[in-house]
């Protein structure tokens, strides 16, 4: 394969869209051609940055609840159009929602207000809220390109590196067989303390796990901050706080796996 052919396929190759036979000849070409390999790396680097820095916006819980309630209400009525008229719609646009907006719209302003209030409260409490701190350190580490200070998938390399720099020895384990390979670790300061930070991958996503000795930290409910999800769990005398852009379900499942494996040791 020459450059003219390869250059058209490099992005598709990086996107996993090339069949294995052609993939092999592209790989061969990339090994011998620095210019095409640079283009390939550009796509991968841009993707890594997008997934780390560009927020994924999950549906607000209020929207989710409103839709469920509206569907349930619609299901219990033979025909939405037969219902008595809802309060006057605020704009022609709104009237199109019919069943969806009946009553629900009335709560909308209040919900929005509550949303902004709670956001403000989160910001205001920023300094004392561990989840906000954790997201902040994750974002800073990503932007500074220093997510990993010791790069290894080998727990016998990562654990001594951390133990030598901390006054505790965090449990370290690779979960590649569960789809979460360990890629390395670094140190962070969280709540004014030095904290072991394990870095895992899930598909193309990075997961930061802050591991601290459990000194009765208040449990943090799973939440979404600045587009990142935060999940928290304690067990076996340790406290795990995970931050990532993976979905809340995956992240919550992962911290539970961490706790179980630690207890099983």
């Amino acid at each position, binding site marked *: 394969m020459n450059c003219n052919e390869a250059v058209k396929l490099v992005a598709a190759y990086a996107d996993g869209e090339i069949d294995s036979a052609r993939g092999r000849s592209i790989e061969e070409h990339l090994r011998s051609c620095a210019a095409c390999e640079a283009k390939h790396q550009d796509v991968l680097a*841009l993707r890594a940055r997008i997934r780390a820095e560009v927020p994924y*916006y999950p549906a607000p819980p209020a929207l989710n609840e409103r839709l469920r309630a509206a569907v349930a209400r619609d299901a219990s009525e033979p025909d939405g159009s037969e219902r008595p008229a809802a309060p006057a719609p605020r704009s022609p646009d709104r009237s199109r929602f019919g069943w969806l907006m009946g009553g629900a719209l009335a709560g909308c302003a209040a919900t929005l207000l509550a949303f902004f209030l709670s956001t403000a409260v989160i910001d205001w409490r920023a300094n004392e809220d561990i989840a906000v701190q954790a997201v902040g350190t994750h974002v800073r580490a990503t932007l500074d390109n220093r997510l990993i200070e010791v790069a290894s998938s080998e727990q016998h390399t990562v654990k001594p590196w951390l133990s030598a720099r901390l006054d505790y020895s965090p449990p370290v384990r690779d979960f590649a067989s569960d789809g979460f390979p360990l890629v390395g670790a670094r140190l962070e300061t969280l709540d004014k303390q030095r904290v072991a930070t394990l870095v895992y991958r899930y598909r193309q996503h990075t997961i930061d796990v802050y591991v601290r000795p459990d000194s009765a930290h208040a449990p943090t409910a799973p939440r979404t901050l600045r587009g990142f999800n935060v999940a928290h769990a304690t067990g076996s005398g340790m406290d795990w706080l995970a931050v990532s852009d993976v979905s809340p379900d995956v992240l919550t499942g992962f911290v539970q796996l961490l706790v179980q494996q630690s207890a099983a040791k």
Partner: protein
Amino acid sequence: MPQHGRFEGLVMPHLDAGYNLARWLTRNVNDAEDVVQEASLRALKYVESLRDGDARAWFLTIVRHAFYDWCKRNRPTEVVHDDGAAIDAAVDESALDPERVAVRNAESRALGEAVAALPLVFREVLILRELEELSYKEIARVVDIPVGTVMSRLARARGLLQRSPLLHAIRAHASGGER
């Protein structure tokens, strides 16, 4: 009513994906909610015609249609159907309210800003590819364009991002690599 069960089981799991797409297309929290609500209404109506297995791409298609209908009513100047010579600007100027940009922390938001500033036709394929992780074929179906056009728009989107005036550090990051 069986379609409510199907809606709950097939569409609701993809509400996050639908909202994320609407949020990036509208670039606004409230408009995104309106678009997703309208899309959900349509999805409920047509959910019986949905075959199992491709519910996410199906719902994203509906969200996208709902967005374009909304856009024609509310922001007609944004809708451009062709990505040919008409779209030469690397930055959609309407995304760059100088006051808002100044208030935001430029460093940590730069890439998100650059994505938000992409012209619509490039932004949608980029979001579907990099955030929703759809295949070229799925993107082609959602956006209703040939796979070749998916590839050329994606290449354009990536090129615009890498040269974006909002973003200077991609090369630096790439050469730094993962230590």
